[in-house]
């Protein structure tokens, strides 16, 4: 059974959730040019939990930003959800970020002056979801991260793990197809980190594709389906996680 699953993961599915084709992202810093991502091709299957590993400056966060539509590649194409986001207009790219992807960050990036409920509601406001529908959606997302009882609290009143769970609820509230996580356990202790990754792993049950950038190989091996190792902007290797 395990062998069959590994085989299925190693061979890209015919219709991947994300198809990266010869993408590069070069920066100019003074006279020199930095190749943050350099001619990288990869397919990420639907419903897959992919962990991007690599040393600092290897380009994994840049790659995540490119997949999330926060940045544009210098060259190459990124086909996500059937559209090449490298060629989208600024407005369509914002729509893509709003409706197709959800993002979580190492430093949570919750708005401190808002309550948990308001933080989680923010993507619904941006997506112009009816007010009547919003309450139910916010509660549903907070229930998925088991934080319904802290609805009216502000982020500063929560622990780091709880704040990251709120960030996950905020990323989930618009029911995205792809969840992108940039070092989600970086600011958490190992027990809390494991709890967060368990939560992320649960989301694949809802048909979600997850791409996670992390430094922590043991956690990645335990929770992800596949590991992709990056170095100097290139994809060095991909392998099935040992946990499988």
């Amino acid at each position, binding site marked *: 059974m395990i062998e069959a699953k590994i085989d299925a993961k190693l061979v890209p599915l015919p219709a991947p959730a994300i198809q990266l084709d010869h993408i590069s992202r070069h920066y100019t810093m003074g006279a020199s040019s930095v190749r943050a991502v350099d001619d990288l091709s990869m397919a990420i299957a639907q419903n897959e939990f992919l962990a991007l590993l690599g040393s600092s400056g290897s380009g994994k966060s840049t790659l995540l930003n490119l997949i*999330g539509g926060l940045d544009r590649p210098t060259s190459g194409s990124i086909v996500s959800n059937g559209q090449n986001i490298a060629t989208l207009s600024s*407005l369509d790219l914002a*729509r893509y970020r*709003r409706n197709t992807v959800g993002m979580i*960050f190492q430093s949570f990036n919750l708005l401190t*002056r808002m309550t948990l409920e308001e933080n989680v509601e923010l993507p619904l406001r941006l997506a*112009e979801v009816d007010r009547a529908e919003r309450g139910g959606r916010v509660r549903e997302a907070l229930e998925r991260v088991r934080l319904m009882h802290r609805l009216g609290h502000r982020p500063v009143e929560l622990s780091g793990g709880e704040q990251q769970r709120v960030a996950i609820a905020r990323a989930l509230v618009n029911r995205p197809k792809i969840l992108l996580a940039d070092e989600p356990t970086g600011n958490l202790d190992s027990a809390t980190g494991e709890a967060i990754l368990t939560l992320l792993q649960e989301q694949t049950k809802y048909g979600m594709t997850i791409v996670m950038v992390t430094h922590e190989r043991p956690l990645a091996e335990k929770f992800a389906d596949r590991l992709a190792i990056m170095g100097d902007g290139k994809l060095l290797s991909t392998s099935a996680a040992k946990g499988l």
Partner: protein
Amino acid sequence: MKARDLTDLALRNLREALFRNALTTLGVAVGVASLVAMLSLGVGLQELASKRLSQSGLFDTILVTPKNSFRGAGRPQREEQPGKPVRVLDEDARKAIEKFPNVVEVYPQIRFFTEVRFNNKPFAAVVAGMPESSKNSGSFDGMKGHFFSSVAADEAVLQIEFAKELSENTDSLIGQELVLRYAERQALQANAVGSADRAGEPSGGFSVVPKELRLKIIGVVETEPAAGYGGYGNARLLIPLETAATLRAAQVNDLRDIVRDSAVNKTTYASLSVRAKSPSQVAAVELSIKNLGFNAFSLLDASKSLRTFFSVFDSLLGIFGALALAVATLGIVNTLVMSILERRREIGVLKALGAADSDVQRLFFVEAGVMGLLGGILGVTFGWLLGRAVTYGTNVYLHRQNLNSIELSSVPWWLVLAALVFAVLVSLAAGLYPASRAARLNPVDALRYE
């Protein structure tokens, strides 16, 4: 993002940095206040001047005279058409003019020179008959005593300058009596002037008989309800129009009536005063009267010059106010630019969550607009209060000088509306640069910002 959500978010942001945003809003308020205060003083002064002039009846009154009226020796008659009979200014003409649209009333100008005897001393004065309507025209506002008790009462109201000649204590004059000495016209029979064929009929000629009338002083007025123009001096002694008419006092134009045959059997007038509903109607009424064949004269042109002067005056005051507002706009730009720096990470989060550039831009715009609107409302209130304070201070000074109170500032609804619109527009313009800068922010850089 929907407008309501955008506004909610903007208000929340403004509440977060309450002190700084309140100071910026106060800056806008001070700018708007100075603009409103300056303009309200300009408008107030204009209204004050217009009111004083309209009380004198100069700007809504047309003086009508016949075309052959006496204009001075050696001067040609105006618009005289050879061969065409000159229309007489009689009762028929008065009724015809009265029927014109926008004419409030038509009454004869009865003014005559007289000698007033008070405490056995003689004083020269021009007497004017005042119509009953002048009571409510504002001409007698602030008078001491009261208006004529009836349309034909033997009562007099004194203009303050004349009253001062009679007594230093003008208030004590009220209730006292004076004697009016005037020249009464008495018509002569035709045979008395040598027209044998019209013996027994009035000739058109008259004799002048000195008469006296005792009048009770019932009021003293500081305004000039019968300011003079069209050849008449300021009347300083005012009596009811009907009383004046019954006196049949000789007037300056009477010499003309002696020789004019057409006026023999009819009441003719040397001139009529026509009051239009408002100064803006004067031109049309004046034209209609001219078309009837009379001379018509008004001070409309002088009024136009006055309005032009005040427009320039208001513009100058407005420029000073606008300068203060310009300084306030720099405050808005500064606040919003600082806000971008502080909220850089938040902008990055919003963009990561799917906010379009236009959403971020509109958010900053709304924040600028709200500060402008609140600053505008506060500014209009401050400006109004400032105007009231200046008026109060001026009136305290005027009272000390024994002068009447005046309304120095005026904040009409259009000024309130214009100030609010101006404040919002200027604030939006000030928000233009910060908003576009925030919208252009790269989300990756913004999220990395600590």
